[in-house]
């Protein structure tokens, strides 16, 4: 007896939305990546809760994959940030606006 399923989903939603806000509101490139991580965390919570609700192991298997993908994506993303920072000299996403207008 833990909690109703919908409560866990709401928690997952809140976490997801917090990650979303981070992406939309921060100018620092690193913060964008952090926001993505938070979103993935929220998705993972939702998966585990669903697995528990329907007594299926797929929920947990998928979280494994999520974490694996998050790791791969963060390393590549940080490498890209490093490359961009070296070329442009700034980690502010507002300077990357050649496509303006």
């Amino acid at each position, binding site marked *: 007896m833990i909690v109703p399923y919908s409560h866990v989903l709401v928690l997952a939603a809140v976490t997801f939305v917090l990650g*979303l806000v981070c*992406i*939309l*509101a*921060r*100018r620092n490139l690193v913060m*964008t990546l952090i926001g993505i991580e938070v979103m993935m965390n929220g998705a993972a919570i939702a998966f585990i809760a669903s697995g528990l609700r329907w007594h299926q192991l797929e929920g947990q298997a998928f979280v494994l994959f999520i974490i694996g993908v998050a790791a791969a994506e963060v390393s590549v993303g940080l490498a890209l940030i490093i490359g961009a920072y070296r070329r442009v000299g700034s980690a502010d*996403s*507002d300077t*990357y*606006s*050649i*496509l*303006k*207008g």
Partner: protein
Amino acid sequence: MVATPSHDWTLLASVLAVLPPFLSFVTIVLFTRPYPRLSAGLSITAVSFSVMSALMLLLVQGTKGPETYMGTWLISSDVRIPLGFLLDPVSLLMLSIVAVISLLVQVYSVGYMAGDPGFSRYYAFQSLFAGAMLSLSISPSMIQLYVFWELVGLSSYLLIGFWYEKFSATEAGKKAFVMTRLGDICLFLGVLLVLINLGNLNIQELNNPAVAQRLSPGLITLCALLIFGGIVGKSAQFPLLTWLPDAMEGPTPVSALLHSATMVAAGAFLFARLFPFMSLSPTALTVFLTIGTITMVMASTMAVVDRDIKKVWAYSTISQLGYMIMGMGAGGYFAGFFHLTTHAAFKSLLFLCSGVWIHYYETNDLFDIASRQGRRFKIPIICLVLAAASLSGIPPLSGFFSKETVLDALAEGHSPVWLGLGLVGAFFTSYYSFRVVFILLFPKGTEEAHYAHRNSSIPSSEEKGSYWVMAVPLLVLAAIVLVLGFFKRTLTDFLAGPPVPSGRGWIFYASMAFVLCGLGLAWFEFGRKGAGQVGAFEKVRPLRLLFANRWYLDHFYRLLLRVVVYKTFAYLAIRNDRQVIDSGLDAFCGTTVESGRMLSRLQSGLVRNNFLLAFVALALLGLWFYFL
């Protein structure tokens, strides 16, 4: 209509009268442009065929009843428009007049236009005109007549603007075309009205009272007035008369052929052709009479003050056409048509004589020609005096007989006003014709006379050939002028005109009085020794200005053009073009470009804005699919 063997030759003759000039036109335009003499020969041969056929038809066929050949050209429900020939006395007489004068003028042009770079082109247009005018004369239906009416107008435009390098010539051609076009619109409206209401445009049927009276009297009057609109345009009646003096920009033989004898007479011919139809409406006839009278008096006053010899004869033509219309409008159909015939002869003779001096002296000015001793050209001056006398109505020349007939017709009318005005016109006519004669015969100015006497000469021997080519047609025409008057009785029977009323001897004395007054005044002012060579009317300044400015008709037209066309319609059209169409399109394009620019501002170049849009779209999609 089946052609039986006895009719075969008339069909052949009609085709032979009409077709060769068209063929000659096509051949000259396509093939013989580089060979001037060949073109001239071709054209003259074609017209000779026409002359022979026309005269044969006139003499043999004319005594029999009217003959028609018609093939069908267009059928549309119950309207049949035929194509063919109508051979009855009126058309055959017109055919002969046109053919003979065309031949004489074309022979004359060999001398007049010698050396001109456009020689072949000139003969091409002359052939075109001859073919069109001949076809017009023997058209059996109004549609065919209208087609050739327009074609004749086209040749007139081409020939007036023949020396197209001169701006005034092209302007004159354009003016002629546009003014006659106005008349032609009325004519076409009249023709259409008849077609709609009667279903048939056959001239013989139109002239048949039993058929024509199917229309209501008001409708007949309207149609008659509209058709008369065409006559006003083509025959240069008031108010569309100012194109004819300007048409003198063309070569003199053209003026002799088109603008005195044949083309402008087409209007009077149409009147005679449709006379039974027109006479069904007395109102219309009165209108015609009025317009003819106004024209006659107006034009003869304009001729009184002009110095250009061709312009004098042009105004005279307008005036004499008015005289013809007067005669026919008063009911004297034979009178008008007889005057048309005699006028063709003496007017073309007048123009051709003037042409000899214009060719040799290259000036149109009366006083210039006189001071260079133009009277030394014997044949032209004698023929000129003869023709001028005929124009004034001196017996026993042909002009006298035709004028008398017209005055008789006028005298039969209800009111004596018309006869009075006719007599006044006769006075003016003789005054201005003898003014020209006396100026040319008795040049004033001593020093110029001696100087010119030494320098001008009868043409040298190498020019003798071209001189005789021009002189022979003059002699032929002079002979016709002398003799035609005595054929009045024959022609009356031929055309089935009304019998000549007797007991009108007082008209003869009255007209002779007016004519001799004119002659006397001209003699007094121009002919006798010590005369001032300034006319009575020229001395009165307002009159001189009025007459010289053509009664300010041209000024009126220019004002009308400026106010109605340029200021209103053209102005509105330009405004519409610039502000509605152009700026509408510009606004449309501008809006498109501006909206594109605005849309492009949505791209801030910042990634997080793209994310924002993506997630908002996602949210809305989720909303849509989950809740709706």
